[in-house]
Structure formats: structure tokens, C-alpha cells
């Protein structure tokens, strides 16, 4: 099973770029926190390029049940048959070279339960990112994925004693098929889009979570996704099931070092909130400016259930992500709170989908985007309320902030409401940080960069307050770094 790196995929000598955290306004994202990597020997490597053999290799390494291999191979066919969605999305997608990507890299199959057991370089990586510290301070459980597999996974005893399951996708499907198989690939079918099909073929890692009826997990569960290798594709798969009356908050963070070649991150995240359950899913994405981040996220909310996506996209070259909620049961509620910051050379194509499928369902979308320099942000929204329903409500707000005249922002809201027993509200605004505002702040002693980041933080302040404290502090810090780099 063990393979060595061939000459094309030799890992470059480890760079210690973090020692010299220069800010590059052209490539945008500041990577002083995430831009470092360690040289790795991978015990498991599916090689470069995608074929049936790649899929068989991944499935074999994981010792999967035959139905999963079947599922993967079918998905591969779907992926190959689907065209790139460039008839509506950016042509930049054509720059992804699927033959140059490495689809599976790992050091081992089983995540460690203590940080002491985690190999040194991987442990150092996560320590630099502050994960073990956050875990001690305020998390109920942590999973730390390094390239294709989790290197570390642990859940506090107190939480696991309540029957909460928090494992990676391989373990979830192998150890608890009776729980997960029923919903796996049901919220987001393989053929939903080209990238959900790709993920279904080569998925690895991610979190499978089950919260039993009535259990309210007090502290958040967190996953951290780290890409370390060059020319790599990360395809984690997450499935969260909150049983009747259960509550859980899940947070994910992501970083990668800056490479000159492109990296692909394509996840599928499925949420199932059964009757009266509540799931809050928080993302702070800070990928480096070479990452294509193409993610499908959707939840199903049953009767009286509540699903809330808080989605924050700061980094990447191109992000396409429209978290959605299917409001399947009466009085279900769906929310998407979205913050996107597009710096020079970045395109944040984000939004939300709300599919109302029962009476008295409500949905709320608040999207704020910030475009800096040549950065481009796009909002795409889909709200669907069919004619036969009554008492449904949607509120959509999208606000864009432009930091200079080259910035670009587009809004494509699609709201279909049929029948006269439902109500929708839609507001959109575009504003600019003007010279007078910056001068005013500078006159009080703030530097131009400080003034810019204060203006941006003010713009998203009402949304940032909905984050858990630790994350809103982190968000503010990331924005400060971004804005400092954009001045000059």
C-alpha cells in the first residue's frame, strides 16, 4: 500500500514563510498565520490524476464496504459526464487541471486521541494555528484534518457519555452505518452539481456527527481543515444529524500555505435537523489565494427545526458556495448569515438557498460582502416558495461595501414566490468607503489601514456579533490583516 512520491510530486523544501510575514497586497490574503508548511512523507498516496484506479485506491486504503466503493465509482462517472458550470459561473473554473491534482495523501488511517501521539510536524502545525489551545478553552470536541485524513480527533468524555458521536467519515460509515447510511448523500445527491459528484467519488475525512434526542451540546464541536501538500485536492465529507430536540454548534476553520500552483478544496456538507432540533454551522474560511474553494452545503430542517449557517469567506482564489436549507417540516426555520471579503485577485461567489416545502416555514438571509482593490464579490440567492403553501416568510438582505473604484460586486437574487399567502422582503444596498470617512478617522490618529479595517469591521459588526466570542475576535484579526495589506 505504501507508495513513494514520484518525481512530479516531490514536495518542495519546507518554507518557513511565517518567519517573515510580509503582506502582499497583490495576491491579497495575508498568510502570516497559515502560510507555513512542513516537509512530509506520506504513507498513503493515490498519485496524480483521477481515474477509476484512484477511486479504488482510496476505497481500498479505507477498507470500505462494497456499497461505498459502488457509490464512489458511480459518482466518478457522474463527475466525468457533467460539464463545468461555466454557462453561469466564472470561466476561471477552466483553470483547474484535474490531471495535475493529488486526490489522496495521508500518513495513516486512524486519528490520534491525544496530541502527544500526533506526529511532531503535524502537531506543530496545529499548535501554530492555536487548535489545542482553543480546544482546552472552549470546545467540546476537535477534529484536526491534515490533507486527506484527520490526524487528531477527540471528544470530551462528558459529551460522548451523552451518546454524541463525533468521528470522521470513514469511521462513521464503517462503525455506525445504521445511523449515517440513511442520510448519507440524501441531502445533497451525487449529481447535484459537478463538484458534489467529484467529492462523492474521492471523499475522505470530514466529520460525521450524531446527537441523540434531547441532547444539547453546550460547547461547540470544531473541525480544522489544513492543506499542507502542493497540487493537492481536499475532499472532506461532513454529515451532521441532530435527532429530535437536540442542539449542536459546529465550527470549521481552514487554512493552507501559499503555493504558486493551484489547490482544490471541494467539500460536501449535509445537515439533518429532525423535529425540533437546532444546528448551527459556523465557517471561517481563510484559504490562501491559490485555493479553488468549491463547496456544497445544505441542510434539511424537519418540523419546528432550525438550521443556521454562519458562513465567513475571507481567503481563496475562487470560492463558490451557497449554503441552503430545505424547510421540510411545518414551522421549520432556515438562516444564512454570510460574510465575504474579496481582496485583489480574489472572487467570492457566495450566497444562499432557501427551499420552502411546508407551511409556516420561515427563512432569513443576510449577506454582506466587501470588495477591495480588484477583488470581486458576487451574491447569488435562491428563495423558493411554491403556490400551495401558506404562512411562509422570507427576509433577504444583501449589502455590499466597495473599498475602491476597481472593485466589483454583482447581485443575482432569484426569489420565486407563488400564491398570495406568503410574504417576502428583499433589501439590497451598495456602499463605498469614501475618502471623507477615512480622512475623518485619520484625523483622530488612526493610520489609513486602521481606518479601513475599522470601517469594514463596522460594516459587518451586526453579523460578527452573532459569532461565538472567540471567533468574532479571530474574524476581526483576519480583517485587520487584510485591510493593512490593501493600503498603499
Amino acid at each position, binding site marked *: 500500500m505504501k507508495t513513494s512520491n514520484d518525481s512530479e510530486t516531490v514536495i518542495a523544501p519546507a518554507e518557513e514563510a511565517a518567519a517573515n510575514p510580509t503582506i502582499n497586497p497583490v495576491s491579497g490574503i495575508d498568510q502570516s498565520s497559515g502560510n507555513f508548511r512542513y516537509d512530509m512523507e506520506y504513507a498513503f498516496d493515490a498519485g496524480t490524476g483521477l481515474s477509476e484506479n484512484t477511486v479504488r485506491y482510496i476505497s481500498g486504503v479505507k477498507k470500505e464496504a462494497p456499497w461505498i466503493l459502488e457509490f464512489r465509482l458511480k459518482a466518478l462517472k457522474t463527475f466525468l459526464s457533467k460539464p463545468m458550470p461555466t454557462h453561469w459561473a466564472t470561466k476561471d473554473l477552466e483553470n483547474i487541471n484535474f490531471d495535475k491534482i493529488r486526490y489522496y495523501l495521508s500518513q495513516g488511517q486512524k486519528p490520534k486521541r491525544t496530541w502527544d501521539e500526533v506526529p511532531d510536524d503535524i502537531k506543530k502545525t496545529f499548535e501554530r494555528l492555536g487548535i489545542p489551545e482553543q480546544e482546552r478553552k472552549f470546545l467540546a470536541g476537535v477534529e484536526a484534518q491534515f490533507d486527506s485524513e484527520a490526524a487528531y480527533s477527540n471528544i470530551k468524555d462528558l459529551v460522548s457519555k451523552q451518546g454524541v458521536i463525533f468521528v470522521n467519515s470513514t469511521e462513521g460509515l464503517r462503525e455506525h452505518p445504521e445511523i449515517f447510511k440513511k442520510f448519507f448523500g440524501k441531502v445533497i445527491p451525487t449529481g447535484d452539481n459537478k463538484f458534489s459528484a467529484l467529492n462523492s467519488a474521492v471523499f475522505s475525512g470530514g466529520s460525521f456527527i450524531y446527537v441523540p434526542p434531547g441532547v444539547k451540546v453546550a460547547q461547540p464541536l470544531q473541525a480544522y481543515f489544513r492543506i499542507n501538500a502542493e497540487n493537492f485536492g481536499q475532499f472532506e465529507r461532513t454529515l451532521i444529524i441532530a435527532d429530535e430536540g437536540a442542539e449542536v454548534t459546529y465550527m470549521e476553520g481552514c487554512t493552507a500555505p501559499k503555493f504558486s500552483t493551484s489547490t482544490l478544496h471541494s467539500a460536501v456538507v449535509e445537515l439533518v435537523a429532525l423535529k425540533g432540533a437546532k444546528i448551527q454551522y459556523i465557517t471561517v474560511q481563510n484559504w490562501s489565494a491559490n485555493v479553488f474553494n468549491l463547496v456544497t452545503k445544505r441542510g434539511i430542517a424537519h418540523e419546528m427545526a432550525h438550521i443556521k449557517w454562519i458562513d465567513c469567506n475571507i481567503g481563496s482564489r475562487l470560492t463558490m458556495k451557497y449554503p441552503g436549507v430545505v424547510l421540510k417540516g411545518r414551522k421549520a426555520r432556515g438562516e444564512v448569515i454570510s460574510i465575504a471579503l474579496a481582496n485583489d485577485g480574489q472572487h467570492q461567489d457566495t450566497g444562499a438557498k432557501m427551499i420552502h416545502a411546508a407551511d409556516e416555514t420561515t427563512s432569513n438571509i443576510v449577506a454582506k460582502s466587501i470588495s477591495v482593490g480588484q477583488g470581486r464579490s458576487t451574491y447569488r440567492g435562491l428563495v423558493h416558495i411554491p403556490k400551495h403553501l401558506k404562512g411562509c416568510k422570507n427576509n433577504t438582505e444583501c449589502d455590499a461595501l466597495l473599498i475602491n473604484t476597481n472593485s466589483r460586486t454583482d447581485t443575482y437574487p432569484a426569489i420565486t414566490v407563488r400564491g398570495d399567502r406568503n410574504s417576502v422582503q428583499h433589501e439590497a444596498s451598495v456602499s463605498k468607503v*469614501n*475618502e*471623507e*470617512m477615512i*480622512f*475623518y*478617522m*485619520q*484625523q*483622530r*490618529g*488612526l*493610520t*489609513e489601514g*486602521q*481606518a479601513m479595517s*475599522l*470601517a469594514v*469591521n*463596522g*460594516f*459587518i*459588526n*451586526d453579523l460578527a456579533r452573532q459569532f461565538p466570542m472567540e471567533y468574532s475576535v479571530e474574524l476581526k484579526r483576519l480583517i485587520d490583516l487584510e485591510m493593512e495589506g490593501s493600503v498603499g
Partner: protein
Amino acid sequence: MSSLEIKNLHVAIGEKEIVKGFTLTINSGEVHAVMGPNGTGKSTLSKAIAGHPDYTITSGDVLIDGQSILEQEPDERARAGIFLAFQYPSEIPGVSIANFLRGALQARMAEGEELDASAYYKRLYQKMDLLKIDRKFTSRSVNDGFSGGEKKRCEILQMAMLEPKFALMDETDSGLDIDALRIVADGVNAMRGPTLGVLLITHYQRLLDYIVPDHVHVMYDGRIVKSGDKSLALELEAKGYDWVKKEFAEANAR
């Protein structure tokens, strides 16, 4: 004791020269009122001193304690002790007054030094009590949706907290009713003292009933054409600016 020297200052907006040889020295402890008709360059003067990018200083100099500040960025000038109370303060949505002031004070500290939060709030509340400002005020976003009077009060509070060496007050009285005017004037009077120099720009004598200046200057066509004590302001009130314009025209004709 500090001095702000404005030496033969010429300021242009684009190609158009607005300030044409303005000279004045303000020492700490002094309050100078600059009066004049509209369009005579009063606001341009204050913005140019503060370093607004739209205003080009074509010749002359501005010095604090003998050091020219013209090469400095607006924020460096601010940290060197220049405070501009704006005629039309900008709105900053989502940024509370408390956080804004905290950021402004933090920016004045050395790298690695942290503002003591509890001492900061203690001082903030002291100043607010002094200025008779409701404590709820500081949780509102800076100038966002404020009335004219609230905006001016917010400027005065910032001035009290930042303790500048020199305050340039640009038409602080405009848009204020008499109660608001009194509150603003009381605030400035409370800050008057040996460490503060004030340049009070106003169109009307009215403000000078409340803030009594040490010196009054009449500005016309981009420069000072007449200086005197507070009685000059009363004379202007009685005779109007036409008197100055006429005198200026005659002086030019000679």
C-alpha cells in the same frame, strides 16, 4: 507651552487658489477666532492644516514648536496634537463611539502597549458627565443618524478624550440651536487652559458670546485683513462684512 505657526500659507483645490498668504501664530492657552464671509477660505484653511488630500499647499509652512508638519500624513499630524472639529463630521456605521475613541487612543500608544480598558472607561464617563452627555451615547455608532447637535457634541467629546495641543474648530456653531450651542461652548470652555490652543472658525458673532476669544481675526479673500480683540467681533456684528469688503477693496485700490 507649544506654538502652532501658520506662515504665509497658500492653499489650492485643484488649480484654484483659495488661501492666499495666511499668517497666524497660536500659542497654547490662547483662543483665536477667525471670522469672515462665506467662501473666504476659512474651512479650507483648517482642512489643509489637518492634511486633507484634496487640498494642496502650494507655498508657506505650518509648524508645531518649530517643526514643519507638512510632510506628515493626516494621522501623524493628529498624533502630533492637531484636532479638527469638523463642520460636517462623517458617519461610521457599525463603529461605536466608545470603540472608535479607544482605537484612536490606542493608536497614540507605543507598539506593544495596551490601553487599560477600565481606566479608559472611567475617564470616558468622567468627560461625558462633564459635557452632560448621556452614557448610552457611546454605544451608538459614530455620527450615524445623529442630529446636528449630537454630531457636534460627539466632536467635543472626542476632543476632550484626545486632549489635543491645538483644536481647529470649523464652524462648530453651524446647525446648532441655542441649547446645543451652549452645551458645546461649555465643553470648550471647560477644556480651555494653559495646554490648549484654539482656532475658532465662525461666520457669526453668536458663538463668541459663549466662547470669548483672546484674539479676533477677520479673514477675507484667503488671508487675514484685520486683527483685534473681542471688540472687533462686536464691531463686525454691528457693521456687517460689507464694511470689511469695502475697506479691503479700497486698500487694494491704493
